[in-house]
């Protein structure tokens, strides 16, 4: 029998319980994967083209949609790029609020990823726990922004809403709850010998390969590269906050999960600092604040909810180019906007962490077993719509 005949081509997805919206084309020899090619594009929605016909403010919801679990990162990156072109800075309070939402979002994005990973290796409890414990965080975000996931909270020049009454207490309760729950997560799932057996030493990504392949986010840090945009090019309120870049050395699936777990703990720290240090003041840039009609400005001060100035409907952005990057839950988000001074970007390039991590499917799965495919897939926190955009 020749080698070709030994190989079986298995199409995993897009209609498969654990493929997500993509197809993995696996060539397997017995139980060993010879080659695996991700076939992406199943949920491509052409964000970059649509952005060329939408106005600047209308693009905010558009860029959020591809990565539903991690909307703040895309929202923030996009707005930062636009602000660079506009040459405006949000006021300090808005910077803190952006940070607050970004960190709440990071925690629930990590829970999302870990939950999906859990069910991919068969632990329905990890899945349900993660998705259940995401709920208090979503509830917090909903109270702050008015929506569960698609916040559209960050707008050029600031944020849309101020902290609601009594929000600090609620945040503190949720943070304590998460801290209370963590030991149980470790006992039941992370330290479960079966989990360990499935994840340790599986899908090892060496430091050199991680750098070479341009991997992003927790997957990069799990291979020992302490790269975090929040430290490297601090934005929002991060320069004033004290936190650590979480890294692991092993580079395997378990290390990637552990980076997420420890980042949740760091995020809890950051959120507490944000609420302690948050300065008083306006939440929208003065320039735009002045454009709001006086009677509405009073209302804004009373309710803490921004009314947009009329100029937002047809925001013109000076010609030029801007690149913004943000460390989202899944990794580094890049927006590269080329403006020609009109109401829509001339070209908008959106590079999401999942798109940069898709290369790992090919790289990490050579020679692993069939059962390792979901274990590796899940550990990457890969989200097909985010990669397809």
């Amino acid at each position: 029998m020749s080698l070709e005949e030994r190989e079986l081509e298995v199409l995993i997805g897009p209609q498969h319980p654990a493929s997500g919206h993509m197809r993995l084309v696996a060539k397997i020899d017995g139980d060993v994967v010879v080659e695996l090619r991700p076939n992406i594009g199943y949920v491509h929605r052409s964000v970059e083209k649509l952005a060329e016909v939408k106005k600047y403010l209308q693009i905010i919801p558009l860029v959020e949609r591809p990565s539903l679990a991690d909307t703040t990162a895309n929202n923030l990156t996009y707005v930062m790029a636009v602000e660079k072109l506009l040459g405006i800075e949000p006021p300090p309070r808005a910077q803190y609020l952006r940070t607050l939402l970004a960190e709440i979002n990071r925690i629930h994005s990590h829970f999302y990823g870990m939950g999906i990973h859990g069910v991919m290796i068969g632990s329905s409890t990890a899945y349900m726990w993660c998705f259940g414990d995401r709920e208090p965080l979503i509830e917090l975000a909903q109270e702050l922004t008015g929506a569960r996931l698609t916040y559209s909270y960050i707008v050029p020049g600031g944020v849309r809403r101020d902290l609601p009454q009594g929000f600090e207490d609620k945040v503190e309760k949720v943070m304590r709850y998460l801290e209370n729950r963590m030991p149980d997560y470790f006992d039941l799932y992370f330290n479960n010998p079966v989990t360990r057996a499935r994840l340790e030493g599986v899908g090892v990504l060496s430091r050199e390969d991680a750098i070479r392949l341009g991997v992003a986010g927790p997957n990069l840090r799990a291979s020992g590269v302490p790269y975090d945009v929040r430290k490297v090019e601090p934005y929002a309120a991060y320069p004033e906050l004290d936190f650590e870049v979480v890294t692991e050395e092993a580079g395997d699936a378990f290390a990637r999960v552990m980076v997420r777990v420890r980042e949740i703990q760091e995020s809890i720290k950051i959120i507490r600092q944000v609420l302690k240090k948050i300065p008083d003041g306006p939440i929208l840039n003065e320039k735009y604040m002045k454009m709001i009609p006086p009677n509405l400005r009073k209302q804004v001060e009373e309710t803490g909810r921004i009314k947009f100035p009329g100029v937002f409907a047809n925001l013109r952005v000076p010609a030029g180019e801007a690149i913004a990057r943000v460390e989202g839950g899944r990794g580094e988000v890049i927006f590269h906007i080329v403006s020609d001074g009109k109401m829509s970007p001339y070209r908008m390039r959106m590079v999401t962490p999942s798109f940069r991590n898709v290369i790992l499917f090919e790289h990490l799965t050579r020679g692993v077993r069939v059962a390792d495919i979901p274990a590796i897939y899940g550990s990457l926190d890969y989200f097909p719509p985010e990669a397809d955009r």
Partner: protein
Amino acid sequence: MQDLLSLIFEPYVFVPLIFPGITVAFLLLLVIIWLERKMAAKVQLRYGPLYVLKPLGGAIQMVADLLRYLFQEPIIPKTVDKLAFILTPALLFGMAYLPTVAIPVSPTFYAFRSDLSLLIVLALSTLAPIFTVVMGWASNNKFSLIGGVREGYIVVSYEIPMFLSALSMAVLYGSLDLVDIAEAQKGLWGIFLNPVAAITMLVLMYMSTSKFPFEIPEAESEIVAGAYTEYSGILYGLVMGASYVKLYVLSLVFSILFLGGWNPVPGFMANDPLLPGVLLFIKAFIIIVIGAFLRAVYPRFRIDQAMDLGWKTLLPLSIISIFISLAEVMIMGGA
């Protein structure tokens, strides 16, 4: 009428048809799947099945599911081997249930008494996996094929140590007759005499019935539903039920081997031939519930890890358990 009733209580009718046979197996199926889902839901901070008979927490959810399976169109793909495809679920279920006929209900109540009944039960229970492999082949689907092959690999890694640990108890009691074995545990139960054999047997039972963490042949996130991928409707209902029935049979055997069977029989039951069977059932039920509970705790092993466990850990342990039995027989001069 009277005749009919007495006919039902004839052992050779009662055992295959009522307990431990098809009726109880079927009722247990309805309860245990619900309970499994309910327990998992509780651990997972949610309610689980609830709306079918809400006052009892959705206790008859499985009746609704069964009805759904019954009336759902069983789709038979064009490319399958039709005969094998349709027959195997029935055979699988039948084979899983068949060993119940050799299981005694009480010291005086059994369909037939054989001095090899333990062997009969074990031998019959090994037949079912063959049909899973056939299913994987007949479905003409890559995932089914992988699932069938996985089942084949798993079978060889659990069967031998399971036999050995069961037989180590036969060595200890000096008999292969389940009635004798149960009666020998009037005092101390087998689990205390030979805990190594008990633990090995317990783990292997869960392994043989695809309980977590050994839910490998039908691992959803890897191979959709393994050998069962192409099945729908009542055919799927049968294959799903089969592994529970197999667990039920093995749990009964486990209770007889290690938990004293119906012993100790309380005074009020002693004179009735049937009542001790209730005790046996309760013990078996607890073993099944533990197996169902594992779903909420464990992810699943990779197939090579499960085989590793079977060959490198459990096989030596089961051999050790035979030596333990031999040593005990030597010391005590036979139980």
